[in-house]
């Protein structure tokens, strides 16, 4: 709209002005626009910021800092955190092993029905997690259409185990990785892959030596996003895996229950998760806080 001066970048005429590094970066981020924002944009933007930040302030203000250690030590926080960390890490590892090849198939092949396939595998992204949990239960539960054979033939029952937690988390979180990596693969310059192939590299070699290195930043970002989503998983987990301390009671479930019995513990557990999230954001600052697009 109006208010923004015509783009200065790429306007053709060379400018006899040397920009400082800081200014160059600013222009790269903002597209060279003006520093000031018109009030109709600025005011809603500030409302949005307040809305997003105020609840977190509430969490920090309400926290019982003085006996934080005793409360955390007395609750099942450590057990729940340990369970959450290893299950979400395992879920991310599984997502990497099968999700990256899936992203490649979606981005690089033209198999029939690819659009339907893409819709199917990204469905968990928009599906309410509880529905995912019910679906998992009906497929892999003891009476599920696959689970019953696992039970009858091998005596394996998945629900209410840590395996179920990992499965629920993978189900909900893997699409984040797939979508991120697929986007990167589509945006990547295929000329390099073609060049490598022309020079005699096999398809797997091209994938390993050219494609993967090109999308490494997105791969990392997708993996962290996937991990964070797995860490926060609640609905599918409590539906499919239930809740038992040390086995299936992850941090979000512990927070939920603690709110009824020990609100102080719930606040502290939430803060622990908040800290983890902040750490993720810091780790990803190059990607998100500087507004790159790939």
């Amino acid at each position, binding site marked *: 709209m109006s208010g923004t001066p015509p783009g200065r970048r790429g306007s053709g005429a060379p400018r006899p002005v040397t920009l400082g590094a800081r200014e160059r970066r600013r222009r790269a981020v903002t597209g060279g626009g003006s520093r000031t924002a018109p009030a109709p944009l600025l005011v809603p933007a500030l409302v949005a910021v307040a809305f997003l930040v105020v609840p977190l302030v509430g969490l920090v203000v309400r926290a019982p800092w003085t006996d934080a250690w005793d409360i955390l030590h007395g609750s099942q926080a450590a057990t729940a955190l340990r369970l959450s960390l290893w299950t979400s890490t395992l879920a991310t590892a599984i997502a990497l092993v099968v999700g990256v090849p899936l992203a490649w198939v979606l981005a690089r092949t033209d198999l029939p029905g690819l659009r339907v396939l893409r819709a199917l595998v990204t469905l968990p992204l928009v599906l309410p997690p509880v529905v995912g949990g019910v679906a998992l239960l009906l497929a892999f539960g003891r009476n599920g259409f696959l689970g019953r054979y696992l039970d009858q033939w091998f005596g394996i029952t998945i629900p*209410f185990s840590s395996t179920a937690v990992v499965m629920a988390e993978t189900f909900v979180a893997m699409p984040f990785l797939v979508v991120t990596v697929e986007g990167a693969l589509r945006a990547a310059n295929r000329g390099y892959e073609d060049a490598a192939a022309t020079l005699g590299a096999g398809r797997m070699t091209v994938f390993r030596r050219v494609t993967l290195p090109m999308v490494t930043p997105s791969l990392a970002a997708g993996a962290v996003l996937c991990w964070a989503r797995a860490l926060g998983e609640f609905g599918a987990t409590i539906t499919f895996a239930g809740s*038992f301390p040390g086995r299936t009671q992850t941090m979000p479930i512990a927070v939920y229950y603690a709110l009824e019995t020990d609100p102080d513990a719930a606040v502290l557990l939430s803060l622990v998760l908040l800290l983890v999230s902040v750490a993720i954001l810091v780790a990803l600052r190059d990607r998100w806080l500087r507004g790159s697009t790939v």
Partner: protein
Amino acid sequence: MRRTATVAVVALAALGLAGCGSDDAGSGGSTSPSGSASASSDVTGQITVLAAASLTESFTTLGKQFEAAHPGVKVTLSFGASSALATQVTSGAPADVFASASTKNMDTVVAAGAATDPKTFAENVMEIAVPPSNPGKVTGVDDLARADVKTALCQEQVPCGATAAKVFENAELTVEPVTLEPDVKSVLSKVTLGEVDAGVVYVTDVKAAGADVEGIEIPTDVNASTSYPIAALSESENAATAAAFVDYVLSADGAKVLAAAGFRQP
């Protein structure tokens, strides 16, 4: 573009104003709290009833009957673990009546000043629910202590969890559940899906589930009971209707519905 934004902002502002307006009207109109059923002209409008999960069937019926008896009244029911509902009430959730499956959770609400003078309207005892095929071959409460029997219980802070714990204490059993569920209906659904071999629920839940589960009685000498108190909430914006609903649950008509569901009279 700009026009759309303006319209949206105006609409939001109007919504906000309307919200404030109705709040004022509500608090202004609720100045006669102890009107109860006798002042039936006040019994109108909408009320929200928070009720223990085990009351799902009976309170759904009671709500419908109450609506039929008082045209113009709309009863909105919300069911969940009594402990979760108590937390909602004490954190200011807008509601008019709270019906708990244990005195403990009601006491929390009363202690927080959110309700006064709760009345006990029913009692309930525990029963073992197993899938119709009884895969764990459960015949009595002792079987729940077997390592090969997968048992679902409620969380300790939920009344059904606390009452089940009392049963095990009476029977001197140590039961290692596979899952601690958020409320009694979640336990029941794990049984109806056949995912666990047994769940400890209320007799009323076994009755409500019909053919989906099989009930195995717990002997009276080890069984434990829980009391159901009900109270209108202090923050109610429709106190007359809330009080009338509480009276209705405590009335002979209410007792009939509750008895049919398998509850005992206190």
